């Protein structure tokens, strides 16, 4: 348990590095903030793409067209089998008449052209809506195969092929983002680790005296870990600030894009603090190992 005098000392020492090496610390925060900005932009782009994909997926549905002459009773018999297919949320019956009416509405002013037809050319169908888990290519393929087994079914139309393309590109983008994010993540740890190493090197005598008078390793480490965390906090806040400014300047061009929520921003800054902590820990661990080797 820390005494008040120790806690005060640790708090002062955690900020001492900033005062002693203003330029180095400033440059570190700037470099790290810029790297983290890249990470933030990639994360935001991934989130937006995922949102877009999710919105598109929520519109995924299947039209199961029935053979000519299938009446309401046959259809009523088929309906429970379609709903029983895993991934199907609902199967809504659309009679040939309803389909024509729907088409008429879609045509609007051009609907007069329908008056030229002798009979209704549109077949009856079921409109299948899917559960959220089934809104992907694999599941849709399985549902189509399952529904096609029934003799009443003439054709199944899945008219949103562009979602397939979007899904493939989203996946590729996510993979690239992950790879770039990982590099930025490691680079940020490296940058912080090096800055903390400088602090440690310039505090070598201080550390030596602390050891001599009986300070514990945990006590010696704490200010350096705090320094790394504070650097992470400042760099993360800088990245979020720059992102917010960027959004503000480009808001007309970025219409429809979703910015980070306050909770996501907080989470990002927390992640940056963790990066700072990890960087300091790496620097300290090496240093203390070196100490014990030479001891």
């Amino acid at each position, binding site marked *: 348990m820390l005494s008040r005098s120790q806690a005060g000392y640790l708090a002062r020492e955690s900020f001492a590095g900033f005062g002693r090496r203003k330029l180095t610390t400033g440059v570190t925060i700037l470099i790290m903030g810029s790297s983290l900005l890249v990470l933030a932009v990639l994360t935001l782009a991934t989130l937006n793409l995922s949102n877009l994909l999710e919105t598109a997926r929520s519109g995924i549905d299947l039209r199961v067209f029935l053979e000519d002459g299938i009446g309401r009773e046959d259809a009523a018999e088929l309906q429970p089998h379609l709903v029983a297919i895993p991934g199907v949320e609902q199967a809504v019956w659309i009679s040939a008449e309803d389909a024509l009416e729907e088409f008429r509405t879609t045509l609007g002013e051009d609907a007069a052209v329908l008056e030229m037809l002798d009979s209704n050319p549109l077949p009856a169908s079921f409109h299948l809506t899917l559960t959220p888990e089934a809104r992907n290519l694999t599941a849709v393929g399985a549902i189509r195969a399952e529904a096609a087994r029934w003799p009443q079914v003439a054709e199944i139309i899945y008219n949103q092929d562009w979602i397939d393309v979007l899904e493939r590109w989203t996946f590729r983008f996510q993979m690239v983002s992950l790879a770039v994010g990982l590099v930025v993540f490691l680079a940020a740890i490296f940058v912080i680790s090096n800055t903390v190493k400088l602090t440690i090197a310039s505090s070598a005598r201080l550390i030596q005296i*602390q050891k*001599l*008078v*009986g*300070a514990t390793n945990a006590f010696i480490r704490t200010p350096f870990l705090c320094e790394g965390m504070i650097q992470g906090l400042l760099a993360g806040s800088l990245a979020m600030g720059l992102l917010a400014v960027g959004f503000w300047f480009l808001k007309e061009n970025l219409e429809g894009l979703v910015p980070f929520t306050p909770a996501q921003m907080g989470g990002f800054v927390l992640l940056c603090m963790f990066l700072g902590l990890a960087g300091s820990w790496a620097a300290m661990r090496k240093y203390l190992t070196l100490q014990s080797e030479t001891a």
Partner: protein
Amino acid sequence: MNTDMNLAPGPLDSRTIISFNRVSLAYKDQDALSEVSFNVTNGEFMCLTGPSGAGKSSILRLISMDAFPTGGQVRVRGMMSSKMNRRKIPQLRREIGFVFQDFRLLEDRSVEDNVAFAQLVVGVPHKRIAENVSRVLNNVGLWGKRHRLPHQLSGGEQQRVAIARAMVNSPKILLADEPTGNLDPRTAQDIINLLFRFNDAGTCVIFSTHDHEIVKSFGRRVIVLEDGRIVSDKQRQGIVDRSVNLADRMYRADLDAAASREEPAHA
């Protein structure tokens, strides 16, 4: 080589504060100490001497458990090197004060802050820190210069700050590694007298030096090391005691040494 040296450690009794039992230490492939044995009793003042590289500093590092023996056993205040939990080393260090030849002060902190630092890091409350710092700075005669920075002090004064810092936690053992190495004879005498005073108050002092003049002035126990082995461990009695003016002896020795260096040039 001295033939009547006492190399075997005496029996461990309740007054034994440090015990070396056939202790060896090697740095990589080089032997620093070979089968060294001795005991130190509570409140003793002991001098380690020998040429550079003889193993004096290694013994001090082993006592503070800054190094661990490659053979044998070191016991300090009941803690054995072979069974030492590394997490307990800080506890042991709080009972040991250190003084070095190069003072090792924090240059950007005042005399007062340098001394207070030793208390701060071990969690002494502020009020007691102020009391203890005042007491120990008065003891070493530097209370009046408490606001100065180390570079504003003489070498002797800086060493007194280092001693104050070593003593502020009231350690049971004070390890002084060549504390007079950077000082002129008169200042060295002052520092040794200061160490005697702390010893008189009950602190066990282990003092290393390669300066024969200082060793001759001791009316205390002297261990002589050579190539990592003890070649003599004797209580010096009646040769000189600390009432003899060490400064004068060292000054004369310096003159003799200078004269002998110059002789060939005149010849």
